[in-house]
């Protein structure tokens, strides 16, 4: 058994609150911003942490989503959602005023720097979800924040207006060139790594692996953290359903995405193990 040695999140911070939907904004094809009034989560959620949302009527199990925006003044949190199956479809069509149970914050988020430096945020598609909150927190700590935002096409990019003001010049890439540069995030990564102290990445696993490898090669002194997904039964460590392949002192172990992740140091991830997983666990 492994989990004892890898750090786990502190479950005593999680609250199960009845959140009220304030509205859903459509941001692109199948992409929505869900805003919930959820005072407890608002005051606790750190960047990279997630919530388990329950929709009723809807699927039995809750669904995990990264906190995207947190507004302590309004007492609201927002989630950047891509419609995938039943749960996300229902969430994307919530009417204002309806109730959603929100359990959170859960998981381990991104490590926030003690001293200021330069952070690079690398997003692939809906993987941009945690970055508005992360960027806000980094800027508040005096960090210089660059943003590399990638997606398949223009209408699938997280809109820049959701990010806080004050970012360093950032780069957008799209697979089809419909916005920003044409190509993959890794095509634009090399030139952005110079002088970077921290790389935070969220997106499809192959992208995360490529980013981790490139950063390790070109900027070995940088901290690299990635946010990984897994199917979740509970979100708080009891179902053992969210197993992900991690490395403990170099040896492959079965880690729990919901407690040791979802954010992990790139060198804690067993990338080979991840690659062998079925594609839908992307």
């Amino acid at each position, binding site marked *: *058994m*492994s989990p*004892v040695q890898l750090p786990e999140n*502190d*479950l*005593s911070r*999680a609250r*199960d609150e009845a959140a009220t939907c304030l509205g859903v904004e459509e941001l692109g094809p199948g992409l929505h911003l869900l805003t919930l009034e959820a005072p407890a989560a608002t005051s606790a959620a750190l960047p990279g942490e997630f919530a388990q949302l*329950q929709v009723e009527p809807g*699927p*039995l*199990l*809750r669904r995990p989503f990264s906190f995207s925006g947190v507004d302590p003044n309004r007492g609201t949190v927002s989630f950047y959602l891509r419609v995938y199956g039943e749960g996300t479809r229902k969430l994307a069509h919530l009417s204002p005023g309806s109730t959603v149970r929100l*359990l959170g914050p859960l998981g381990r988020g991104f490590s926030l720097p003690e001293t200021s430096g330069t952070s690079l945020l690398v997003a692939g598609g809906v993987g941009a979800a945690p970055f508005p909150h992360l960027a806000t927190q980094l800027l508040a700590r005096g960090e210089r924040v660059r943003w590399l935002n990638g997606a398949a096409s223009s209408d699938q990019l997280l809109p820049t207006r959701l990010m806080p003001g004050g970012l360093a010049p950032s780069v957008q890439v799209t697979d089809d060139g419909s916005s920003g540069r044409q190509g993959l995030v890794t095509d634009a990564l090399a030139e952005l790594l110079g002088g970077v102290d921290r790389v935070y990445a969220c997106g499809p696993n192959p992208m995360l692996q490529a980013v981790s490898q490139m950063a390790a090669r070109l900027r070995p002194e940088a901290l690299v953290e990635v946010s990984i997904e*897994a*199917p979740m*039964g*509970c979100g*708080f*460590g*009891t*179902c*053992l*359903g*969210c*197993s*992900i*392949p991690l490395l403990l002192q170099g040896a492959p*172990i*079965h880690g729990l995405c919901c407690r040791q992740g979802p954010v992990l140091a790139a060198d804690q991830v067993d990338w080979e193990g991840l690659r*062998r*997983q*079925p*594609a*839908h*666990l992307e």
Partner: protein
Amino acid sequence: MGGEVVIGRGLTLDNPVGAASGTFGYGFEAERMGNLAGLGAVFTKGTTVDPRPGNAPPRIAEVPGGMLNSIGLQNPGVEVVASEYAPRWRGWAPRVIVNVAGATIEDYVRVCQRLDPVPEVAAVELNISCPNIAHGLDLGVDPRAAAACTRAVRAVTGKALIVKLTPNVTDIAEIGRAVQDGGADAVSAVNTYLGLKWSSNRGRPVLPGAGMAGLSGPAIKPLAMAAVARLVAALSIPVIGIGGIASAEDAREFLELGARAVQIGTANFYRPGIAAACAAELQNGRGAA
């Protein structure tokens, strides 16, 4: 309804509601989240002689009204449980009952031997639904093997002995009688039902291998109630009802049917705190609401 219940051999629960094995870890997550107080019992994750890493992902898949799991008994092994976890249970209100799993009767004996002197372990629950036992049959589907396993464990433990039955059998009452004769103080039923989810996109089952996994959740409640009814009719020892319980009303139905206590499983995942809430609701007589 909702007060103290006697299971037998010194095992008494403050109230009839427990959290089911594999859905509550070893209780520490609930402790941190404030969901422990008020529970009658915590049934731990299935514990084996040696640590087990569990199956490769994916391990769970959702279906309407339920979920399939093939966790593969991920657990730290009995030594960690006995020496590191048990001391942390000291002073807990719910009784902690260790769920025991193995591949051979000898495995069950060794785990229970190790747990016998541990005072924080209130009882053991034998999960005899594990494959690859003598004669190519599951231990839990063969009355003789089930009785033999019960007897062997009975010989090495003074603790209350609960045997957890699989519903994937022709006659669950027959297995229940066999373990009763073997010395079980109670039976718990049911474990998960064999299910499969297919993915047309991938042209194969969603879960690895042949795709067989265990179905749990509200979808199995009517099936579990039929199994419990048969056991209640056939046995003289207490029956602990499990299967799809997601409210105090569900729990009350099993108790009215004749179960001495109940366990809540899958519902803990999507309604953390449900088990303790049901216990409170039964005690306050609001279960009928």
